[in-house]
């Protein structure tokens, strides 16, 4: 983080109004937001989805996505109003004076070109330096971003390097023309926590090194706390508040800002017992010839919540697929309520199927878009309990009430629901079977913080009322702290450890658990610095 000795204004956005066209009409996306940025300063822009933070970030370049337009406002960058420039004039600024780092590096690199060519393309176009000088410089940037084999990595194609590496190469690409301003648009959201730490520290050090100003857009307050000097909170296209990072964290003024990290305040006292609802013993599983689970054993106590954590590729979701029978194991056995379950879905009885239900990560794709809420929830009631007519309707309405909705939702289609409501309907659908065990596969990761909190509270309430057992699969440690009794840590298809929440979260840890837990950003602006110091020692 840099201190601003000379406070020279680099970017001044005044009263920005942007409209977007969707569903056959124009909506207001930004309703008069101001933004000031000084040279060498990093501003964090946070808010939930739909807050307009990404639109604001792109507007800082004078760019709007297709289907959006700037209605009103000035974007004064270095004394020029970008809103008044033609496309042709703006192109001379884009990529050279202001550059952009996108959320998904994997999708934002052109698959047809080598990374080096893409890294230096903007600087090359502007003829900032001869190509060979730019290439050497890019290699140095790769080095300072701690990329492996910096000399040759540029000769690869995007699909040949990992997501975390791509994100760093994109930062190198943004830095190559030595811009005055970089827009980071959720650059670490798609990464695992352990990778996120590396990328964050690389980005921060390089921005520091060249004293580049930046706007850092994210929905994660703990992440922005590591990067930004100042934080601005947006909601529904309006500013909620803005202050210095330290002040914002220690003393947020607005209720809304406080609620942004309230999920982290949810606490559940841990309990466990030896009466196992489900135990899986020495499971191996494979997709085709590639083995993904190695000797996995997990016990799930009755009426409790066991969280399975790990980064992508650790085998969490595969474990869920094995338990439900979607992917038969190649070795080992599953004991459910004292009885052995057959590996294959088709060989399980209807009763066994009823007692294990699953809720998926993406409620959008988990529901048939052509079915009404009534059909979605009613179908398992009919299928498992054979209930029809009036009785079925009463049951559906009871379920809706249980998930804190009401009968006015009966005739709605999934497209007419919000993200949180959709996930609630998915929960109701699972409950309709009256199951003993519900597997929640990343059920909150696609949702905003506040909505997440609502869903987690609902799940806890349902457990208290109905005594249902949960397996909660997630990569988010904050969620784990909020909801679990026991934790299972997985890494590369193996179980690292299982135990009570307090035991897993407190030292001593196995190495991997230590790495995973220490990588979770905390609401402390010095967290990243301290962590890096600690790790280098």
């Amino acid at each position, binding site marked *: 983080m840099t201190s601003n000795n000379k406070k020279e204004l680099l970017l001044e956005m005044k009263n920005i109004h942007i409209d977007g066209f969707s569903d056959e009409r124009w909506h207001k996306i930004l309703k008069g937001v101001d933004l000031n940025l000084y040279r060498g300063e990093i501003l964090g822009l946070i808010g939930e989805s739909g807050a307009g933070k990404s639109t604001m970030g792109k507007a800082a370049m004078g760019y709007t996505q297709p289907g959006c337009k700037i209605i009103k406002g000035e974007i004064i960058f270095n004394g020029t109003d970008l809103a008044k420039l033609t496309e042709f004039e703006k192109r001379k600024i884009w990529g050279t004076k202001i550059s952009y780092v996108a959320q*998904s590096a994997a999708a934002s690199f052109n698959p047809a070109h080598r990374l080096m060519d893409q890294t230096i393309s903007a600087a090359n176009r502007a003829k900032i330096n001869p190509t060979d000088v730019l290439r050497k410089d890019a290699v140095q940037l790769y080095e300072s971003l701690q990329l492996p084999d910096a000399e040759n990595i540029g000769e690869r194609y995007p699909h040949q390097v990992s997501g975390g590496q791509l994100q760093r190469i994109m930062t190198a690409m943004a830095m190559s023309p030595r811009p005055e301003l970089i827009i980071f648009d959720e650059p670490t959201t798609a990464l695992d926590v352990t990778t996120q730490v590396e990328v964050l520290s690389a980005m921060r050090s390089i921005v520091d090194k060249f004293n580049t100003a930046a706007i850092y857009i994210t929905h994660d307050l703990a992440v922005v706390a590591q990067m930004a000097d100042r934080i601005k909170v947006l909601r529904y296209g309006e500013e909620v508040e803005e202050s210095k990072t330290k002040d914002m964290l220690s003393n947020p003024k607005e209720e809304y800002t406080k609620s942004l990290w309230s999920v982290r305040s949810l606490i559940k006292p841990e309990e466990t017992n030896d009466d196992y609802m489900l135990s899986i013993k020495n499971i191996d599983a494979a997709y085709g010839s590639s083995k993904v689970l190695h000797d996995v054993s997990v016990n799930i106590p009755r009426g409790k919540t066991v969280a399975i954590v790990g980064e992508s590729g650790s085998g969490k979701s595969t474990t869920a697929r094995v338990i439900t029978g979607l992917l038969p194991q190649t070795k080992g056995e599953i004991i459910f309520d004292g009885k052995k379950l057959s590996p294959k879905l088709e060989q399980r009885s209807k009763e066994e199927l009823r007692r294990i239900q699953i809720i998926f990560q993406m409620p959008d794709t988990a529901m048939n878009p052509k079915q009404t809420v009534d059909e979605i929830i009613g179908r398992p009631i009919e299928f498992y309990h054979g209930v029809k007519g009036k009785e079925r309707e009463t049951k559906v309405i009871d379920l809706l009430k249980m998930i804190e909705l009401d009968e006015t939702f009966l005739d709605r289609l999934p497209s007419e629901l919000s993200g949180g409501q959709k996930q609630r309907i998915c929960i109701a659908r699972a409950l309709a079977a009256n199951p003993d065990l519900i597997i929640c596969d990343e059920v909150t990761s696609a949702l905003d913080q506040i909505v997440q909190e609502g869903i987690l509270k609902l799940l806890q309430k349902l457990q208290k009322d109905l005594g249902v057992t949960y397996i909660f699969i997630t990569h988010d440690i904050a969620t784990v702290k909020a909801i679990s009794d026991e934790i299972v840590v997985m890494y590369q298809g193996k179980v690292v450890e299982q135990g009570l929440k307090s035991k897993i979260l407190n030292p001593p840890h196995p190495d991997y658990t230590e790495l995973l837990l220490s990588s979770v950003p905390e609401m402390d602006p010095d967290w990243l610095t301290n962590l890096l110091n600690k790790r280098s020692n």
Partner: protein
Amino acid sequence: MPGDFATEILGQSATKSSVEALRSELGLDKHPIPRYFEWLSNVFQGDFGSSFSGRSKVQGDQGDRSRLVVELIIPRLKNTLFLTGVSALVAIPLALLLGISAALYRNSVYDRSATGFSLVTVSSPEFFTGYIFILLLATLFPVFPTIANVNEDTSLIERFYLTALPVFTLTLVTMGHMMRMTRSAIINILSSEYIEMAKLSGATRYEVIVKHALPNAWAPIAQVITINLAYMLIGSVVVEFVFNYQGIGRLMVGSVYNRDIPVVQACALIFASTYVILNLLADLIGIISNPRLLYPK
């Protein structure tokens, strides 16, 4: 198709024994399946056999004037390849140019009229398009000849002139499809994130299309181009007939009339292998243009 070469050539008044004699001489009395495999094994040794027509015994002549199938086909094949080659040289660049520019100015008047017009040309059968050209450019405004009658002595310039109308017809019939596919392949890619990224790094419109979108569109474009090349070659059967052009298509139709099986089989083999080879080529282009397939992880 009733009858065979023997009944066809000897006519209705032929005696049963003379038909039998001709059949046994040509091998037509054998079962068709072993006959086919015999022919096929000869083909693998480079022997396409002789044409039935022009045989000495049939004509009652002294010398055997029957011709080898290869001799018969090669000049015709050359003519057809010339026609499709010229058509492809006109149609492919034009289709790419129109497709790319339509994608570039999407939803403009230009785009709408280009896609609309291409829909009309794709939907009209080639004999219809051919006759329209004859009506316009040969009858009403006599610029080009109706009949594209070429032989081995025709000079190259004259060939271009004579084949103008068939070339126009084949171009028009295939161009629309290629143009529309090029346009949609590029538009598809224009909505991807790396295109927005390219724009935000200051790429010009031209650069976005040619450097960023096109390299990712080669596979679908190659696919549609090769399909149309094959279509041109095979569709030339109709066009050659309309313009009385001495190509392989006409030869095949004529041989079918005469039940001249060796020639028909050879033509069918050429058409089929063209299809297979061109599709293989499209797949190869798809692999070469995609680094994900060319350079594994």
